[in-house]
């Protein structure tokens, strides 16, 4: 990639498509339009979809493509303001009090211990305090894992891009970060948060896009194997009762595994030996019949590939 400064004001949907592609993320026009509008309207983008469909990857790729910092906040149950916004470094403050109590007045001590150097900056504060010329990409990952109360906190942050620290005052972002929130839809994200965001639902990609992703992510893979893997994954997704359907990441991992094992095409044996790369639940693995997949993708049923399997 050429080392050229990217001007966010002159971006277009086509330009975003090209930039994402240059860092290995094959997007479609829908995705590029959503990213474009998020940047231009300075609105957070909420991306929902099945696990492994490239939601997190999009934020990473965008940061890389725009050559800006990626700040990530991984959500989990119990995540609170002290882990997301800021926290005072209490042990260090106590030590400072001990050191200063003989030489300084209480007012001086207070001024010292509530200064920025005792502030532990968490991801949201980092995102508003950034002093780079370009806004960072703030990834708030798996927001559905966090509690509803945390969503309320996000509402405040996302509407103003401002954090108030009582001892210091309000800190407002000089450049609004590009915010991407992801959710696997394990629970419903609140209406308030949805209203504040642009919304994109990512489902499994079209066949041609998935094939292109495999070609890009697994260099030198045989064309036949790449086609077989993509078709087989689509067959597996369509099987009734599969609890954890494979996402794009599983497609890539499977293609890599098969290539490493020396397969040039998909066979029943190859499926039997590597299906655990694609499916992670024993019940799901039991539901998959390799001969059915082979018959559906129109490949060979028993013959091994010419390259064979390494010893």
């Amino acid at each position: 990639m050429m080392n050229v400064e990217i001007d966010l004001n002159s971006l277009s949907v086509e330009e975003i498509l090209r930039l994402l592609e240059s860092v290995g993320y094959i997007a479609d026009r829908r995705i590029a339009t959503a990213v474009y509008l998020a940047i231009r309207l300075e609105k957070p983008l909420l991306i929902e979809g099945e696990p492994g469909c490239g939601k997190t990857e999009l934020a990473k790729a965008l940061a890389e493509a725009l050559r800006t910092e990626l700040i990530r906040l991984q959500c989990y149950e119990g995540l609170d303001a002290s882990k997301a916004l800021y926290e005072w470094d209490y042990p260090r403050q106590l030590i400072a009090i001990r050191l200063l109590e003989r030489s300084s007045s209480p007012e001086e001590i207070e001024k010292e211990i509530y200064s920025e150097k005792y502030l532990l900056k968490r991801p949201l504060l980092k995102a508003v305090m950034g002093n780079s010329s370009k806004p960072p990409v703030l990834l708030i990952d798996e927001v559905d894992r966090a509690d509803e109360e945390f969503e309320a906190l996000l509402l405040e942050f996302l509407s103003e891009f401002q954090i108030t620290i009582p001892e210091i005052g309000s800190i407002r972002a000089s450049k609004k970060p590009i915010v991407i929130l992801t959710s696997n839809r394990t629970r419903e994200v609140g209406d308030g948060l949805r209203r504040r965001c642009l919304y994109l639902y990512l489902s499994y990609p079209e066949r041609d896009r998935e094939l292109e992703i495999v070609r890009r992510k697994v260099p030198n893979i045989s064309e036949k194997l790449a086609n077989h893997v993509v078709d087989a994954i689509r067959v597996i997704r369509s099987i009734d009762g599969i609890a954890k359907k494979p996402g794009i990441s599983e497609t890539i991992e499977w293609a890599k595994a098969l290539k490493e094992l020396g397969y040039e095409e998909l066979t029943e044996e190859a499926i039997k030996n590597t299906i655990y790369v694609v499916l992670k639940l024993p019940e799901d693995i039991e539901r998959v019949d390799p001969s059915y997949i082979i018959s559906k993708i129109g490949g060979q049923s028993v013959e091994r590939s010419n390259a064979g399997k390494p010893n």
Partner: protein
Amino acid sequence: MREATLENLIDFIRILRENGFRVGISEDIDAYNAINELGIFGDIRSTYYRVGDFREALRITLVKDPNLYELFDKLFDMYWLTDLDMRHRIENKVKVEVVIEGETPDPIKKFLSIYSPLEIRGRSPRDVMIDPGVRNTVRRILRMIGKKIPTRPGVRRAISSKGEINFPLSYREAISTLGDIVKLKRAKKKISRAHFVFLIDISGSMEDAWVSIAKFLKALKGLPTSSYEVFLFSTDLIRATEAVQMGERAVRDLLVRSGIWGSGTRIGESLYKLIGFYRGFLRSKSIVLIISDGWDLGDLKLLEKSLAELKRIVNKILWLSPHAGKKGFVPETLCLKIASRYVDAILPTELLYDIITLRRYLKKLSTLL
């Protein structure tokens, strides 16, 4: 092709709202800004040649639920790409509604799904008397269920001697005593109050249970309105929360008006409507209580799909069946077999108005956490 002007955009958003889309004013502005940003606004040529971008911009800004994508596309095509009959209807402010049909079941199954194994009864529900004691019992029961199935603990902590030692809180307190930790502070997470959603089957096969159900509904009157929602269903589903709050007469009027009292059962279709149309009344902390005998010959695939989606949205689903308390009960109807995969427990209906039955099942409820 209709031009992307402000007037047309506002009309289109009105149609979306009429069809159940929850679009706020801020989203109107986002949509306007988005099509402006893309250079489509007020330019018929751009609107025509870049209809894909235009559709995407409106979808990204106005639709926040993928279940509504299909309906959005239909409305988009009808409004922006055809303007014959629609123009007349919009100019005359006629309500525009579009219905997305689910999978069409086998004709015989469809017939049976409309008319349940019991005959249609064209009668209205009978009057029910309730004494104040029942009201207090029901409220006590709901409180007990709410405590046994708490919603997720929040991030806010309350100081509690039974909680864990909280170091940040202790350090923070120590700052005021110039660094001396006088006492270790303890805190525990607050549990938010339960929210109940009652889905009550009022089909013919549930008529024998009506007296108990009616007593239960009467007992709900006067409870904080934010703590529950009531939906009644048979071949269709209606929201009855306001009628329940107004009293028995309002509930009877609603049942007569809607014409769903004592008819067949289509649970899948009813749940589908609940999720699609009344989504805003479901919260992630909701405890859904489906009161039904499970006699249903509706679209079972739709039932399974709807239950899976409902499970994803709410906190817990309990199925209360009038037969569940009987000796040797096993969920053998197709509907209950499917439901047992998605609901957290199948329990007897008496649980809602008999405190002795509830006590018997409390242990089971506490393991649902």
